């Protein structure tokens, strides 16, 4: 009888939740952020390791770049029929970073190592908002380590390939809608990490002094969390139904195919456009498998059914002096999240990015790049009835200053 009574407990209790939606973080190079994060069809310096390994062999010198961004993201939420903003995230400052090192083995061949963070998401809604049974707090990150080789077949065509070793981490916390004697809601925390491998391929073509183009493919990587820790805090009389246990889950980090074009009408001016197709359809559902049954079930699963999405970018760099470069760019990033599937993890919608940047050569071999990116996601209202999400209206913006130092030798 107890099990019969309790089998109904909160029905969708654990079926909700997850990673992030649209959890790609395109902040791979401070110079390129300034140019709307274009870079597939042009030479981007050491960061070609990320943007297009095919262009890496054209670097003139060895180089090391270290950079980081400070990601201030803010999301406002208005509950249905509430007539006000009812919740705001209190996200910690994100720090996506990048390190690239390129070594010229000879004129045609270059080797490099990149460490960068192309996926991640942090959302901290807290324990008081109406959507806490969907999500209280999420932190998702992935660090890519990418050894890379690049070969210039001719002075017009270069190819490159990198192997990516990926370390992913996820921590998800949310409320469980059962209350103890004092009225406190239960809580679930899922914490785990995993590793995986993938690859990054690129071709770079420079048919003339004024024109260049490139194609880049970064493979899908499925990070498998094998032995994550699932911890549950509930009223003592229910603890036997919510044992602390291990969980397994897979976080798909989707493939990205990019095509880019560069146009250099004068020595001082570079224009670039990129189109990327992110194969978000890889993210069909979020499933957690538990070693011990949680509230009567060994797994929980929620549909995500993301759609492939396109990103359109445009950027420019103008060398005002020998030492100073000024940059600007913009992009439009289509949301992979279909109507009905919006979740508070990353309440995604079509987003617009505007960026500015500057580069300054301090000396012959030391260069500084600074960037500032503003992201404005369209306000989006969703019933969130297909994903275990939280219905309502979301609006997100992000302010992302960044800085990098490059040393050439």
């Amino acid at each position, binding site marked *: 009888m107890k099990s019969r*009574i309790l089998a109904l407990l909160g029905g*969708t209790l654990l079926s909700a939740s997850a990673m992030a939606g649209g959890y790609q973080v395109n902040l791979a190079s401070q110079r390129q952020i300034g140019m709307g994060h274009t870079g597939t069809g042009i030479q981007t310096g050491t960061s070609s390791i990320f943007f297009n390994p095919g262009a890496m062999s054209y670097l003139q010198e060895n180089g090391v770049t270290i950079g980081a961004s400070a990601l201030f993201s803010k999301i406002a939420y208005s509950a249905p029929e509430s007539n006000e*903003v009812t919740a*705001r995230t209190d996200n910690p400052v994100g720090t996506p970073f990048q390190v690239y090192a390129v070594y010229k083995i000879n004129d045609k061949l270059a080797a490099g190592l990149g460490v960068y963070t192309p996926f991640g998401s942090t959302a901290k809604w807290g324990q008081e908002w109406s959507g806490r049974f969907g999500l209280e707090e999420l932190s998702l990150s992935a660090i890519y380590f990418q050894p890379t080789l690049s070969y210039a077949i001719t002075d017009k065509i270069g190819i490159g390939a990198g192997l990516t070793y990926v370390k992913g981490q996820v921590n998800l916390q949310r409320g469980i809608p059962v*209350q*103890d*004697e004092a009225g406190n809601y239960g809580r679930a925390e899922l914490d785990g990490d995993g590793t995986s491998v993938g690859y990054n391929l690129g071709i770079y073509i420079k048919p003339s002094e004024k024109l260049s183009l490139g194609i880049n493919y970064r493979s899908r990587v499925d990070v498998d969390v094998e032995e994550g820790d699932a911890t549950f805090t509930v*009223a003592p*009389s229910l603890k036997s139904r919510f044992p602390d246990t291990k969980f397994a889950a897979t976080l798909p980090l989707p493939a990205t195919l990019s095509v880019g074009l560069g146009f250099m009408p004068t020595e001082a001016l570079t224009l670039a456009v990129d189109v990327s197709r992110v194969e978000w359809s890889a993210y069909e559902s979020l499933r957690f498998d538990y070693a011990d049954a949680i509230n009567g079930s060994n797994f929980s699963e929620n549909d995500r059914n993301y759609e492939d999405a396109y990103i359109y970018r445009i950027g420019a760099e103008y060398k005002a002096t020998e030492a100073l470069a000024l940059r600007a760019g913009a992009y439009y990033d289509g949301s992979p999240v279909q109507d009905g599937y919006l979740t508070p993890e990353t309440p995604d919608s079509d987003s617009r990015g505007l960026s500015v940047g500057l580069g300054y050569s301090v000396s012959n071999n030391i260069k500084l790049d600074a960037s500032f990116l503003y992201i404005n996601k369209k306000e989006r209202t969703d019933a969130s009835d297909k994903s275990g999400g939280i219905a309502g209206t979301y609006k997100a913006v992000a*302010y992302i200053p960044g800085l990098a130092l490059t040393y050439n030798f």
Partner: protein
Amino acid sequence: MKNLFYKTGTLALFAGALLASCEPDIDTPSSSAGTADFSTYIAVGNSLTAGYADGGLYRSGQLNSYPAILAEQFAKVGGGEFKQPLFTEAQKNGSGYLSFKGFDASGLPILEPVTTELAVRGMGLDGKTPLYTAYEEPVNNLGVPGIRMVDAKTAGYGFNNPAGFNPFYERLIGDDLTPSGALLPYVNYVDATNPTFFTMWLGNNDVLGFATSGGVAPISDADKFQENLDAMINALVGDSEAEGVVINIPDVTGVPFFTTKATANLMQMAAAAGTKLYITAANGQVREAAATDYVLLTSTVGTPEQVGPQTVPHGFSPYNPLKNNEVLDGEEVTAAQNAIATFNGKLKAAADANNLAFVDMNAFFNSVKMKDNMPQLTLNNVAYTPAFITGNLFSLDGVHLTPRGYAIVANEIIRNINAKYGASIPAVDETKYNAVLFPGLQ
């Protein structure tokens, strides 16, 4: 170099921090009262209106009554003060109520009455009805647990006398034996309030008394229901032509008091034990139970009992059938549903005739019944069903709502007010209200 790096970095961080203080905003509709005037809101009704829960009326239930929740939202669009006949903090447990203490060996919830910090001031002259601490100041929440529509015009309904009376009404009107005191009919008490806006959720007990007694207590007479309804509407709408809401009566078969001890399950259990489930029908005949009969939550079905030389689970033998008052049998269910349909027709007609908002709570509670074993209402990732304890809507008595249930009902009422009066009253965040609280270690 270092200096430049530092300066640029500082500048970028400063710019970032500056902009980061710019919060995203969402354009929302602004709240408004529309054509309604909430300055004096009066709630009329029975236990549901009073905030009764867990088998009793107590302070925290009162504080979370749906009229209190509504008044809080009305206050955002010009609503005035809303007074309730609250039990004091020192007597916060009011009439006493059921508390969830754990699970027994068979896994059933153990419910124990709370007997401390009560607001009981003595025993009524009928020798069985407790008297509660009086609250004679004017109030806005006129909910009286137990009251039926047909009681509205009854003089002496709240008068402490040997023939019986309603103690929750008695505490509101005092014991002066005058037509304006202890003899005051409920409708006159209501008439004196002069609301600008009202809600009326009355009539449930005209059927529920019959249903919860397994068909022993009578269903109210339809003509008398109409007569009292007309008087109530007159008193509420009054000369000032107050606006308001009429709320109808939910179906009894959607309430855990009737569905938790599901007859189909009990019949299966009996079959597994090689026998059948037997009930006593209204005419006193013992017969096999059918799936159309509803065994009441308070039934002791399954309890081992001595029958002759044998121990038989209660109900699992024709010689130990469930008593008439433990079952709402199929015919009685039909009678209850017919009466509800009749009364709801009258309530709707009264609302329409007076151009009032009408909340079809019957349809609402039907809409949250499980379908194909799936919950039909999910809010903020929490499923709501009429299931006992786990459905989040109903309190431990299986009839009245949890604070969360009352909040969801309040939102349903708000939706109807907004539609009728062109208002934009914000809904409440139901997750701020408690559902059933689970005990500590058993």
